[in-house]
């Protein structure tokens, strides 16, 4: 007789859900996880991980096709697209299996199907699990954590068709290499695909409706990246919208409107990266006190919804739509449920954001503009990659590390970086912010030489007029 009663049921097995389930099991709670498609969710299977695998290929191809600067002669290098895609799918599959193994090791009961709330009361919530129209299980739990994630948003007239107009999913498994590409939306997803296809040799055009690309990043960093992309040969239209797509047999003609100017381009493929919507449908939320606002479930800082015993974490609970935010949110939620002594809501401003295009972008905390708008008098430090020995030795002289401090207290309000490897460097500033460090501690930290990380030190010095290497 299968177990049907649990302390906690987690609906959704992505980075939010499976981490919550594992932590719940660690805390001694009887835990079940319900996943309707693939463990690891979008992140592992059709998001974070496979895209990083693809971007590694495009990065290496970039080095290979520019190898002579390093004194290496390469002839006849080419891209076997099928092998590129196969590698990325294999990596996703490996990690997907890994999650299954972790859940088993932690004795979490996994149900394959879609979960839906079907009533019950505080302390005994009922959840129905169904797959392909057939009932799989009827479960009951004291607490239900919704971690159902999100999916790509589509715009009217620009609906993806899986063949010519792609979402991230199709963009990850191209069958043939497009010679030209239109990317609609310049957020992290858009720019990563733009970068990938550019480095593989396609002509890439990016269209962004806001007045600048990478709208959530610091303006100066976004402008720097914009300059780099244009240098690589990308065409970028900001303050512009794609108003029409005319699909032909094997190409698409797009109408781009910017202000009162209108233009048309014809490309092989279009990628739609215009945001996401939360997966809030078919969860049985109607009739509960759970509030949904613009496709996201409203929660407090403990991930509690309006209905007692029902929680929501990750992409379905709102921005930032990042896997590490989902994981932490889940841990905070479940630690509070379990009455764990160290349960502690995290500070949203301490969540880093990373974009893995070329050049990479990474940031944490307030942008310079945001800090000023909130009334802070700021001290800003800047250090360019060209001033760093390791960057030059690596052949990566283009980049910038910017730090923003509160003039009065020395609080590190934000750090923003663009350039090679910055996604691995940002953690230093995240640790600094989490510990509530001031400029004093950062200045007194000894960074190793020769590394790119020294620039993090120099940026802080620059904010206080003490920069040495520039």
């Amino acid at each position, binding site marked *: 007789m299968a177990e049907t009663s649990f302390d906690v049921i987690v609906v959704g097995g992505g980075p939010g859900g499976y981490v919550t389930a594992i932590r719940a099991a660690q805390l001694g709670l009887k835990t079940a996880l319900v996943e309707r498609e693939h463990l690891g969710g979008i992140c592992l299977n059709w998001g974070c991980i496979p895209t990083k695998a693809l971007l590694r290929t495009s990065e290496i191809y970039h080095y290979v096709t520019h190898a002579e600067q390093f004194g290496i002669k390469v002839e006849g290098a080419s891209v076997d697209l099928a092998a590129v895609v196969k590698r990325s799918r294999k990596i996703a599959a490996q990690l997907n299996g890994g999650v299954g193994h972790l859940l088993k090791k932690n004795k979490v009961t996994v149900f394959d199907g879609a979960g839906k709330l079907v009533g019950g009361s505080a302390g005994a919530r009922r959840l129905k699990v169904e797959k392909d129209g057939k009932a799989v299980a009827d479960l009951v739990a004291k607490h239900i954590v919704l971690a159902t994630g999100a999916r790509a948003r589509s715009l009217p007239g620009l609906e993806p068709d899986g063949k010519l107009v792609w979402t991230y999913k199709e963009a990850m498994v191209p069958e043939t290499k497009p010679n030209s590409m239109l990317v609609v939306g310049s957020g992290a997803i858009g720019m990563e695909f733009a970068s990938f296809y550019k480095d593989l040799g396609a002509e890439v055009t990016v269209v962004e409706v806001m007045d600048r690309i990478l709208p959530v990043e610091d303006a100066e960093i976004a402008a720097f990246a914009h300059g780099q992309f244009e240098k690589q040969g990308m065409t970028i239209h900001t303050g512009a919208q794609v108003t029409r797509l005319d699909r032909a047999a094997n190409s698409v003609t797009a109408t781009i409107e910017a202000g009162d100017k209108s233009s048309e381009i014809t490309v092989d493929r279009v990628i739609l990266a215009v945001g996401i919507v939360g997966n809030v449908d078919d969860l049985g939320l109607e009739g509960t006190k759970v509030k949904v606002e613009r496709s996201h479930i409203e929660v407090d800082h403990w991930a509690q919804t309006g209905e007692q015993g029902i929680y929501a974490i990750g992409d379905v609970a709102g921005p930032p739509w990042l896997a590490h935010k989902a994981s932490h949110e889940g841990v905070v939620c479940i630690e509070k449920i379990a009455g764990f002594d*160290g349960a502690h809501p995290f500070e949203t401003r301490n969540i880093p954001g990373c974009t893995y295009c070329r050049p990479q972008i990474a940031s944490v905390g307030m942008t310079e503009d945001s800090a000023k708008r909130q009334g802070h008098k700021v001290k800003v430090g800047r250090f360019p990659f060209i001033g760093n020995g390791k960057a030059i030795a690596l052949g990566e002289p283009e980049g910038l590390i910017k730090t923003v401090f509160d003039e*009065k207290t020395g*609080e590190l309000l934000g750090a923003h970086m663009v350039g090679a490897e910055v996604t691995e460097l940002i953690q230093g500033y995240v640790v600094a912010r989490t*510990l*509530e*460090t*001031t400029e004093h501690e950062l200045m007194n930290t000894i960074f190793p030489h020769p590394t790119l990380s020294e620039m993090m030190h120099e940026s802080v010095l620059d904010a206080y007029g003490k920069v040495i290497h520039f």
Partner: protein
Amino acid sequence: MPIQILMPALSPTMTEGTLAKWLVNEGDDVNAGDVIAEIETDKATMEIEAVEEGKIAKIVVQEGTEGVAVNALIALLLEDGEAAGALEGAVDTALASAPPPAAAAPVAPVAAPAPAAAQEVAPALAAASSGGRIFASPLARRMAQQAGLGLTDVTGSGPNGRIVKRDIESALTSGAPAAVAAEPLAAPATAATSTPMPEGLEPAFDFEPANSMRKVIAQRLTESKQTVPHFYLTVDCEIDTLLALRKDLNFRSDDYKISVNDLIIKACGVALRRVPAANASWTGDGIKRYHQADISVAVAIEGGLITPVIRDAGGKGLETISSEMRDMATRARDGKLLPEEYQGGTFSISNLGMFGIKQFDAVINPPQGAIMAVGAGEQRPVVRNGALAVATVMSVTMSVDHRVVDGAIGAELLAAFKTLVEDPMTMLL
């Protein structure tokens, strides 16, 4: 022979300083290099370290004592193996041989030569030095230092009880209206001392160390009662019309909810416009008559009280007063009021009506000239045209500073207030 710990010189030109804080207790063992106290001049704060190993046998100069001369004896250290008996007379000889203290500053009682009077060290000290490290983030430490806030007064909400930025922010906003920048800890001993219970007759108790807010309340209100010549005027106001008006206004819209207190604030503000002589402050050589009435409204919060200020109460509409009060009272309870929101004020109102208090006399908040204490509105017998009737009556007592407002002016203000409260339509004039 006990080792003398003397007041150090922080600079070649220093002659005296404040012994700001002891970081050890009598009876603690110390090693050479341990930080034992903090000394302040107006230029800097420095830590003093023990130079020898031993046990702190006697603290001679109390925490917070100002004007301690350089080289004055501040404590005695017993070396390993020395008994307390060695202290006998040690303080006498030390005081005799030390250069006389420069200014006769208010040194706390315990500095008297008789070592036998081992008076229990003032509670503030015992509570302050736990002897251990205080865990605080670098940012929190710096913010506390910038604000002159002692970390021992702050409770940490971070991991493992660490003091973090938000703890400093809330400690700073929950401070009582300390308009004067003086550190509460440096307040003269009058605030700290109290008559102790007779030996052996005191029952068991829980001790709660005074936080900044409590210390400031203690200091300022003691000062008020000791220095301000208070007199008291009481009127009874019939408030049936006022209550009906309130009900009517609230019925009309869900956008606001006017309370009786909001109406009282408004009436008081208008009354002060009509009798501006009562909206004043004594400066020592004259009287400041303010051009507008900024009314401090007492709000009870966890551990004490705070007074958010309604600026120009007479010139604001009821809805504005109501929403400002609601917003500030909520933030006051969350410890999120900004200093500019609770400091200043030219007149105060304290309302204990909701607790059923019939009438009370409040303590003036210096440097204001008066405070109005409002009691509960209750059904009372009244006489109208020679016959008994029943009305809802509220007793209001104003405590007045006689240096700035005489009886007649005070009475005029209360009369104006009563008229406005009993006939609220006249507030429109």
